[in-house]
């Protein structure tokens, strides 16, 4: 139930994200979700992509340093209080969120929340126990 995420190390320089998106575009790789974490000096671009291996290959060829890690994708109805319901469960079960980001799925009216947990397996079972819908890679078009 875990989703593979690619993180890329970037210096805070003009055009670096553009460069990555161009490389992925040229390689016909679709970015399904994306978030950028940054400090004043560097950033980490985290992405869910439709083709993990190809992404790793094309970015490494261009000397980017990257890391693959597991995240959990949770489906919630796209309406007020959707995220809060999930966070309430996590809070109650004392599961810490390292970081998270969200994106929306058309045409269904759903939001997908991407969570990074210290222990993704434990988080998945807790979420499922509470009837929260955890999405699989296939559902996000990841291969």
């Amino acid at each position: 139930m875990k989703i593979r995420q690619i993180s890329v190390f970037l210096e805070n320089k003009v055009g670096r994200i553009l460069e990555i998106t161009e490389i992925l575009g040229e390689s016909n790789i679709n970015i399904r979700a994306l978030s950028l974490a940054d400090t004043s000096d560097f950033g980490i671009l985290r992405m869910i992509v439709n083709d993990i291996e190809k992404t790793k290959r094309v970015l490494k060829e261009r000397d980017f340093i990257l890391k693959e890690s597991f995240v959990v994708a949770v489906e919630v109805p796209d309406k007020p209080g959707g995220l809060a319901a999930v966070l309430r469960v996590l809070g109650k079960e004392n599961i810490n969120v390292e970081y998270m980001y969200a994106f929306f799925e058309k045409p269904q009216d759903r939001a997908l929340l991407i969570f990074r947990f210290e222990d993704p397996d434990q988080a998945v079972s807790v979420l499922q126990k509470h009837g929260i819908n955890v999405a699989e890679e296939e559902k996000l078009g990841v291969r």
Partner: protein
Amino acid sequence: MIWNKERESLSDGKKSVLQSEQLKSLVSRVYEVIPFYRAKFDKQGIHPKDIRSIMDISKLPFTTKDDLRENYPFGMFAVPMERVVEIHTSSGTTGKPVIGGYTNSDIDMWSEVMARCLTMSGTTENDIVQNAYGYGLFTGGLGVHYGARKIGANVIPISGGNTRRQIMILQDFESTIITCTPSYSLYLAEVGEELGIDFNKISLKAGNFGAEPWSENMRKEIEARLHLLALDIYGLTEIIGPGVANECMHKSGVHICDDHFYPEIINPQTGEQLEPGEVGELVITTLTREATPLIRYRTRDITSLIPGKCSCGRTSVRMRRIMGRTDDMLIIRGVNVFPSQIEEILVKYEGLEPHYQIVVDRVGSMDELAVCVEMNEKLISDEIKELEIVEKRIRSEIESTLGIKVAVQLVEPKSIERSEGKAKRVIDKRKI
């Protein structure tokens, strides 16, 4: 294995007699034929007859790089031009280069000392020496070449650069010895790894790495990645080129060929001679050089001589790794900083490539020190806090070693300029 057992394992008494004779003859020769030395001796009130043994060397004046520049190009030559068979210069990018001239006998001596150095890394007539030092005016290429020829090894004069071809030749010719700068050896490892080369399967067994300062940790890195024995070779254009000194397999300092090059360590401020073990500036007298002999040449290299005998059987005096140079020593807020101190810290971090750059700048009236370190696969995390921990650990270790504040910046791989020769480690933007 010792190339010249007799000369490399002289007893103290025999060595002193030999060096004394060599010094006396050198001093009278330079006094006779080099006006610069005659004037300098006269000014100091010293005459060749005052030099009776090697112990008297401290009475002699020093020679500096500025002296060589002022006598450019041929003012320091001690033989007529028709006896000179070769000339080399330093790679100096500022001002006029420093010149070394060689007679036939100097080339023989150079071949001899380089044969000793290469023998220390295990080179024999059965070896294939891939010589990746630059050929040309730079002494590195031809110095190693002459030594390898003297041993009777098969020398491949590939010269520097063209890394992919270097790797192809390494594989195809099955080179067993490599000679290049330590930073270039890591560049070779890096490119080789990218090409999917397993250095464990390559015939290389040893390398003589020099022409720039490096550290013990860098040795570990080179040995682990290239799967060879990495030994330090020391030399400088003014004295002969490579061949002044080399480490033996015991890796406990470089053995100076002291039957040709007499070393002293001095206090760079006062010029006073220091005891073995004390750190100071290395000063060398070329006891046997014909074309461009030098009396007490100030190398600006900071090191110390090692007391005691080496277990390899050689009695030639040993010297520690060069810790830095009196002229690349950075003074930041009054603190002496050697780039090698920072390198020692960086390479301790597992997975950290020793690709770094030290940037010194003056902001207002304060000097600021920044160290850029290249990111790599082992350090990357998807969490900012993990990377901030890495930065912080490096920063606090540098700060506690140097005693000054430093900014550490993680940068993208390959963003620090790679030269195929000497690595540009320090950028000093201060205008003082």
